[in-house]
């Protein structure tokens, strides 16, 4: 694959990735939210595979497979099982209304493009667009965490943020070294385990997964 074509493919992937972030920001239903998380994971895997093929970095195939299994399938599926088990699969309760959140999200995208302007002319490898979009996705994931009141949506936001980071690593730098990549994936997996442990602890202690009930008077 020629490098020009690869760049175009990357830009398309980045645009799609941004789209999934916005889709998650706009979701009202838990099930749809998780579906978008899975799609995002899948997109990450496809992008990794494309870069692996296009830029001839065979070790990226490993991260593509990891991404597909962990982020595309396993984690969303486990989260879904937990949600069913705890009976919290109904609506997501946004703290700020969805329209306003989307506006803030758009503002964050503008901000990211502004911040990454100085990088634009520097690099041969990466386009500043990809950095900007990666940054925007990270910020939007943080917004998801901030504006939702349930513990589970917070975790979805956290995972979306990890996805965005991996996406940036793959598209902007053709993947971080494999050792680091596997280490990070391992950390995320453990984090996921601890998260699910926490759901049960929080549920048992506070009788709710709504973070508003978790605030304790000092």
């Amino acid at each position, binding site marked *: 694959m020629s490098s020009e074509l690869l760049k175009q493919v990357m830009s398309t992937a980045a645009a799609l990735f941004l789209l999934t972030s916005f889709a998650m920001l706009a979701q009202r239903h838990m099930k749809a939210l998780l579906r978008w998380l899975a799609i995002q994971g899948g997109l990450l895997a496809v992008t990794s595979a494309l870069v692996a093929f296009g830029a001839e*970095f065979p070790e990226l195939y490993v991260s593509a497979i990891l991404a597909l299994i962990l982020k595309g399938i396993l984690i969303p599926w486990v989260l879904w099982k937990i949600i069913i088990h705890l009976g919290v699969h109904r609506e997501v309760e946004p703290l700020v209304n969805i329209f306003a959140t989307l506006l803030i999200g758009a503002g964050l995208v503008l901000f990211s493009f502004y*911040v*990454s302007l*100085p*990088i634009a002319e*520097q*690099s*041969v*490898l*990466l386009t500043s667009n990809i*950095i900007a979009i*990666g*940054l925007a996705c*990270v910020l939007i994931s*943080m917004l998801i*965490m901030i504006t939702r009141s349930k*513990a589970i949506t*917070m975790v979805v936001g*956290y995972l979306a*943020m*990890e996805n965005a*980071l991996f996406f*940036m*690593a793959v598209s*902007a*730098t*053709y993947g*971080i*070294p494999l*050792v*680091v990549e596997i*280490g*990070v994936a*391992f*950390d995320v997996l*453990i*984090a996921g385990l*601890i*998260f699910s*442990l*926490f759901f049960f*602890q*929080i549920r048992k*202690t*506070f009788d709710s997964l709504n973070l508003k009930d*978790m*605030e*304790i008077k*000092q």
Partner: protein
Amino acid sequence: MNLFYLLLGIPLLSSGILAFVGHARLAAGLNIIAGMLTFFAALGLSFEVFEKGTILLYGQSFFLDAFNVFLVSLTAFVSTTTAIFSYSYMLNEKEKSRVSPKSLRLYHAMFQMFIFCMLLALTTNNLGVLWIALELATLTTVLLVSLYRTPKAISAAWKYFILCGVGIALALLGTILIFSTSSEVLGHSNDALSWTLLYQNAERLSPNVMSLAFVFIMVGYGTKVGLVPMHTWLSDAHAEGPTPISAVLSGLLLNVALYALVRCKVLVDIATKQNMAGELMIGFGLLSLIIASLMLHRQYDIKRMFSFSSIEHMGIMTVAFGIGSSLANFAALLHMTVHSLVKSGIFFTVGHAVQEMGTQSMTKIRGLIHHQPGIGWGLILGTIAIAGFPPFAVFASEFMLIAAALQTYPWIVGLILPSLVIAFAGLFRHLQPMVFGVPPEECEVVRVNMLPVYIHLGLALVLGLAMPEFLADWYNYAAIVLHGGAQ
């Protein structure tokens, strides 16, 4: 070389073993032994570094230089004394059945795992692995903070988890950005993340990308350092977790996070040829210092109060590293060492005091010196040391910081000095009645081991009066390495 195997191997192995040791006394004893062995390995390595200078191990994967070797020894030392303290503390907790045998097993296993993560973070040469180890250190301590399973503990652990998780994710973003520019210089491999190579080639890295990267790294690792305004997890996690964990969080983990920040700062300095990174650190450090010293006055919980004191001191160190002159770096390194020793010593004392009085509320803790004099004296001496009274080394390092500030950014002295005074007042207004008041009737006499406290305070005293020459040499050397890029 073999010692290095031991340094990382012992904590990892003993963590595995301790996960299966159900007998409380045996597990606590093994924990101490593992700590001591690790400490001896660390001492041996320090000696090697002392003789040969910087060592690189396994190609470029690990390295020990003057900057990290003393932190390695410090980490191993404080974790050993914490294990000694934890022996009596955890047995007391078990008798009061605040912890189940199962969570005690988890506690010991995770304690050693935590030590392993910190040692890995300190010795690795790879910025990516450094990130992984720091994240893993968070993950191992999250379950320890929620060990008591009280609503407050769970909510504190959740906060700790989310805030540090998000924070450290931003640090990963920064690391990826560094990699994006360094992979163009050093090639697309592990080399592009190894610190020693980056340090040699830092001038060729793109200044714009490095500046942007540092902003994220600052916020990311800064969250773990406990800098204001990302500090809110720290006081909760310290207050609700078991006290030995508060001691190692305050005394060690914050140091390691600051270490990560400083390693990145040096690279950014060289790449940008400005002190932009340093000024950012000064800003965050000053804010932490000021806010934390004011917050000290408004605390009701003794562990929470000392956690704010940790934020204050991390602020001081961040300012000192931010100034970046050799003298300021020297002050920061010394302060790092003494703060670890004294603060963990204070937490040991506080742990005993809380068990004695059965409460963490400062309005109910009274008359420690009358009831169990050892605890009372420990608390007074510890607080005197941390507040920066002369014979202890905190005074020396703060003095050096002010001297360094006068040479570079004189105006910040006007903020540092009042904050130190306010912090001092905040500590002592709470301390006085707790130590000298009339003891309540229902308090009990607990099993106390004050030896670690006095060892820590003794060391802080020695460092303040007569610092050993080799340590001063290391500090000097590290201060110069870190100064490398600053203007």
